[in-house]
């Protein structure tokens, strides 16, 4: 005789145990430290901070350790942690024009004040597996100072490297970014639900937190004919900027420290007409740490989403704010896709019953070859 299954709670506890074992792996191997992850898997930490919306390399490294390297899971951990933190204040807007540059490149000019600073990048490596990295176990260098999670600032003072956008703007070649009427506060997605139409501050925040893979695909689609914008990288900057806060109690600015960010200014298809002089249009991307792919993808999608504002026909998914912004958050997408694993057998039972009924009706029709009476006898 069939007995209903019990023991859900015991099963869950057992699964925790198995998960902990899986995460730890072979106990004979040294355990990964959070410091190691923060220092040596730095680019994973940068992604988790960006999409997790928290600038804290140690917490991000912890999340990566806890999630056994599943970055979407780590992002989830960080977001959940952030959700309950008290909000102490808002910093001043960062000034990337005063960045201590570790890397700065422009595709629009061969050379420019401040020069092309390659910095640390995989761009010009050849993707051949380096088997020398299989060797491990080198002792930490006793004489080295504590590993700094911040990038090595370049030797180029920020005043010597003005932003390319500012250089183009000397001639009025690039559109200004107009301040919206009334200079409203930026929208905060973490406090209010997203509604459409969404203003640009909401869009940029949504894109900054967006899943990198999704954003990359959307950006790629704009390069393959699904809404072309003729993009050029005006400038990519990676380095550290100072965070400043004006606490209410003090009334003057104090420095909270530096954060590492990557900024991408994309210069796009010019607009104009027989009567209006043409200007290049822009797209913007910003991410924590060294995250160029994310910042670039964000800038391409930002530009695509401005289609309506710029009077362009909306023909492709990347130009549709509702499509892009509703599907960009990895917590939402991963959560809903994976929720299909939850039991759905009650809903499914209803489907089963209907399909069986319809099949039976067709079978009856085939044998009688006459219009069937739905209330007829069961087959």
């Amino acid at each position, binding site marked *: 005789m069939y007995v209903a299954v019990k023991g859900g709670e015991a099963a869950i506890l057992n699964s925790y145990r198995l998960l902990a074992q899986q995460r730890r792996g072979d106990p004979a191997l040294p355990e990964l430290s959070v410091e190691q992850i923060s220092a040596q898997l730095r680019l994973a930490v940068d992604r988790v901070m960006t999409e997790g919306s928290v600038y804290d390399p140690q917490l991000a490294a912890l999340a990566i350790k806890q999630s056994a390297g599943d970055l979407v899971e780590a992002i989830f951990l960080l977001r959940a942690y952030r959700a309950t933190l008290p909000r102490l204040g808002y910093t001043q807007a960062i000034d990337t024009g005063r960045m201590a540059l570790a890397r700065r490149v422009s595709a629009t*000019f*061969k*050379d*420019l*004040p401040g020069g092309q600073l*390659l910095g640390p990048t995989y*761009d*010009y490596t*050849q*993707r*051949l597996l380096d088997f020398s990295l299989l060797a491990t176990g080198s002792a930490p260098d006793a004489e080295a100072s504590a590993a700094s999670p911040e990038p090595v600032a370049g030797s180029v003072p920020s005043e010597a490297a*003005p932003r390319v956008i*500012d*250089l183009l703007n*000397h*001639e009025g070649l690039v559109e200004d970014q107009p301040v919206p009427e009334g200079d409203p506060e930026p929208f905060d997605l973490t406090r209010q639900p997203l509604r459409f139409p969404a203003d640009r501050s909401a869009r940029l925040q949504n894109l900054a937190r967006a899943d990198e893979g999704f954003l990359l695909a959307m950006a790629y689609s704009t*390069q*393959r*004919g*699904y809404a*072309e914008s003729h993009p050029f990288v005006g400038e990519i900057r990676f380095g550290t900027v100072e965070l400043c806060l004006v606490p209410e109690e003090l009334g003057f600015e104090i420095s909270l420290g530096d954060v590492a960010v990557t900024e991408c200014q994309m210069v796009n298809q010019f607009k*104009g*007409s*027989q009567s209006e002089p*043409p200007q290049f249009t822009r797209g913007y991307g910003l991410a924590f740490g060294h995250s160029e792919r994310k910042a670039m993808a964000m800038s391409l999608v930002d530009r695509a989403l401005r289609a309506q504002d710029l009077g362009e026909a909306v023909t492709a998914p990347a130009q549709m704010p509702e499509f892009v912004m509703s599907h960009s958050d990895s917590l939402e997408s991963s959560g809903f896709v994976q929720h299909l694993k939850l039991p759905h057998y009650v809903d499914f039972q209803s489907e089963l019953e209907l399909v069986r009924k319809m099949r039976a009706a067709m079978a009856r029709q085939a044998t009688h070859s006459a219009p069937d009476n739905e209330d007829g006898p069961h087959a």
Partner: protein
Amino acid sequence: MRDPHIHFAYLDERTKRMIRRAILKAVAIPGYQVPFGSREMPLPYGWGTGGIQVTASIIGTDDLLKVIDQGSDDTVNAVNIRRFFQRTTGVAVTTDTTAASIIQTRHRIPETPLHEGQILVYQVPVPEPMQHLEPLEVETRKLHALQEYGLMHVNLYEDLAHFGQIATTYDYPVLVNGRYIMAPSPIPKFDNPKMHMNPALQLFGAGREKRIYAVPPYTSVESLGFEDHPFSVQRWEQPCGMCGARDSFLDEVITDDHGGRLFVCSDSDYCAKTQAAAAQPDASP
């Protein structure tokens, strides 16, 4: 210099054979995009893998290779690709346009005219000239097959109607051998006339989109336009600030943040040669 652990030119021989067959087909049908089984290469898609696969399939130990990007031998991308071939083939390299047997290029045709026996390999990002008008490949394939190019001319007409001139300045579409419309890769339209009746073989490789096409030597290549708005090339007011040339494509270099500008030849080999010739006024150029 050559890494003995890597097969000559990196690709295995069967892959090279597959690519050569595609090249032969491309040469037999000028301007027609031949699909090929593009391999994952140690450089990312979008960074020249098509050009690299074409070069890797035709290069031999006797070749003399030149690699340029934006006209210069010295840009990081060109250096990277040249090092790749040195590492995987040990073949001799040069910056001399006239001496090279294979020239791989991104976004420029050298100013120095090419001669018979040379091969110019172009890196192509978007092989389909109509992709920005019609993204579906099923449809563009049909348009090419049926020679239905009305869409391309509609696009040019629209530019004239809205801007008073054709707004395409690079990757300017051309008609090859009177039959296929081709994307010449993002070379400035300034370079388009060089493709026409060129004594060298011109090969085009698109790794990410997986297409190869070709313009055989002495083939007609016409840039699209209208009779009363014919194709025209860019001109500069200034000569090159380093060698004085008035007939080459110039790069704009920003010298200060007060609007200071300098214009310099994009083709580094051509500029150097022009400067050398000017320094010896009695010697024949």
